[in-house]
């Protein structure tokens, strides 16, 4: 019998986890994992945290042990780019013109950092933060930088600001075109609390202004704002969001809409091609619409789900979105789908430990909290089981959410 051949394009956390799950489900198959970077697959969350601060080692990011691919007989092609997919021939073509046939193909191509397209954006000292090499370069530069300017007050920009303030000796200024921090998908209370957290630590914010030019001859020396104000800078970090890497899928004729469109079984619009991780636009039960989530959770879980479907065990991807960020000594988490207009109640423990729960017509929609991972997890379980406790119960620190779940576990 001919062995099944699985090809995975994209060797990040999603691709590697899919390879593991494929091997577990189909021990005799041929599995090829293809990645552009020169490293073994690694997790990205620590790039803007432990790698930037220098408190953790590169080896700690690895998704699998270095000998994993040999032991599991998975062909791992690093430093390799796929240039096209031919769904008719069922093969992918690599940049060295090699062709690889597949029975089932998985796209885990992830995202790329959105580029700042203004004069001077190619100067030395201007950084992005998406890859390990970029994180290491920024770590080294921050050790000697005096004036850091961060373009964009999203999660990456804020995590960089917090590391710079905690571990480095530079001034930190964040310039953001919007009115405040975290303009997307985050409730107002969370913006206020995080903004305040950074102000307390001495980060300076400039809102409602865009950077129009980066100044300098070779090295960056400053950032020019739209009103002519010039911010002195010897280090600039651009954190203005990411874009899904859909080019290959698009060229191959797959349906694209804010990501590669997949159904709940991680199938794309083209037979035998699946997609997983943050490149996908997938159905969300709570919202009843397609969403793309730039998160560890999607990379971790949707990839495994895709592998199960590819190996003949139909499995729906149905996760309540969950996300975390670490800033200063605060672990901040968000669960569910939050939007403006929802009613909030909160449970307060102390200044750096609290949780806000959000409701829409008495229906629980989600929560965010500082240093309250346990409560966030309980909220996630409430959402999974579609339980909406009375808001006053959630607000009361004396009420145990675990017990609430236990009593409503079902018949």
């Amino acid at each position, binding site marked *: 019998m001919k062995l099944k051949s699985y090809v995975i394009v994209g060797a990040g956390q999603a691709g590697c*986890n899919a390879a593991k799950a494929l091997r577990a489900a189909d021990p005799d198959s041929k599995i090829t994992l293809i990645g552009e970077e020169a490293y073994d697959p690694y*997790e990205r969350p*620590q790039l803007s945290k432990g790698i930037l601060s220098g408190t953790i080692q590169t080896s*700690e990011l690895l998704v699998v042990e270095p000998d994993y691919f040999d032991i599991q007989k998975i062909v791992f092609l690093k430093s390799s780019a796929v240039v096209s997919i031919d769904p008719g021939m069922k093969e992918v073509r690599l940049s060295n013109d090699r062709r690889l046939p597949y029975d089932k193909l998985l796209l885990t191509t992830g995202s790329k950092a959105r580029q700042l397209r203004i004069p001077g954006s190619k100067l030395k000292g201007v950084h992005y933060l998406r890859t390990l090499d970029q994180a290491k370069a920024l770590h080294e530069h921050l050790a000697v930088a005096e004036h850091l300017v961060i373009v964009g007050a999203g999660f990456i920009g804020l995590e960089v600001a917090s590391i710079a303030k905690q571990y480095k000796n530079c001034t930190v200024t964040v310039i953001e075109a919007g009115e405040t921090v975290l303009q997307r998908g985050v409730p107002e209370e969370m913006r206020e609390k995080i903004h305040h957290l950074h102000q307390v630590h001495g980060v300076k914010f400039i809102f409602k202004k865009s950077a129009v030019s980066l100044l300098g001859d070779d090295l960056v020396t400053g950032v020019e704002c739209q009103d002519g104000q010039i911010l002195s800078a010897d280090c600039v970090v651009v954190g203005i969001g990411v874009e899904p890497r859909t080019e290959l899928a698009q060229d191959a004729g797959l349906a694209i809409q804010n990501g590669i469109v997949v159904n709940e079984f991680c199938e794309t619009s083209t037979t035998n091609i699946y997609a997983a991780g943050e490149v996908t636009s997938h159905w969300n039960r709570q919202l009843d619409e397609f969403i793309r989530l730039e998160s*560890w959770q999607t990379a*971790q879980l949707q990839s*495994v789900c895709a592998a199960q479907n590819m190996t003949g065990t139909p499995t729906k991807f149905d996760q309540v979105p*969950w996300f*975390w960020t670490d800033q200063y000594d605060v*672990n901040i988490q968000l669960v569910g789908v939050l939007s403006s207009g929802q009613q909030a109640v909160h449970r307060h423990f102390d200044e750096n430990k609290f949780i806000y729960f959000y409701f829409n017509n008495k229906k629980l929609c989600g929560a965010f909290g500082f*240093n309250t*991972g*346990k409560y966030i*997890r*309980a909220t996630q*379980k409430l959402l999974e089981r579609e339980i909406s406790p009375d808001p006053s119960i959630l607000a009361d620190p004396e009420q*145990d959410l*675990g*017990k609430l*779940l*236990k009593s409503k576990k079902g018949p």
Partner: protein
Amino acid sequence: MNKVMENSKRWIDVAASDDLEEDDVIKIEAEGKAIALFLVEDVYYAIDDGCTHELASLSDGYLEDTVIECPLHQGAFCIKTGKALHAPAEKPVDTYEVEVRSDRIFIRL
């Protein structure tokens, strides 16, 4: 296990039995170690408090039955055996023997 090591272990008084409620976890320090102490269905359990995946305190995590989840990444461990049950945790955590003597809880370290 090495005999000398085994003999060098001793029982240490770490908490009062009513420091924990049913379905509860607390963090204690003993012999320089951080340990998570649990009470589930009238049985006490003790495991290392540090998650084996990344630096996090399991006692801050979510407990359901005898499974504790890390508050950072939701990696999960069995509090009876220390076994990692859910990615991203893969390595087990150490477990410790627990005894209740009168109203005090002792663990063997």
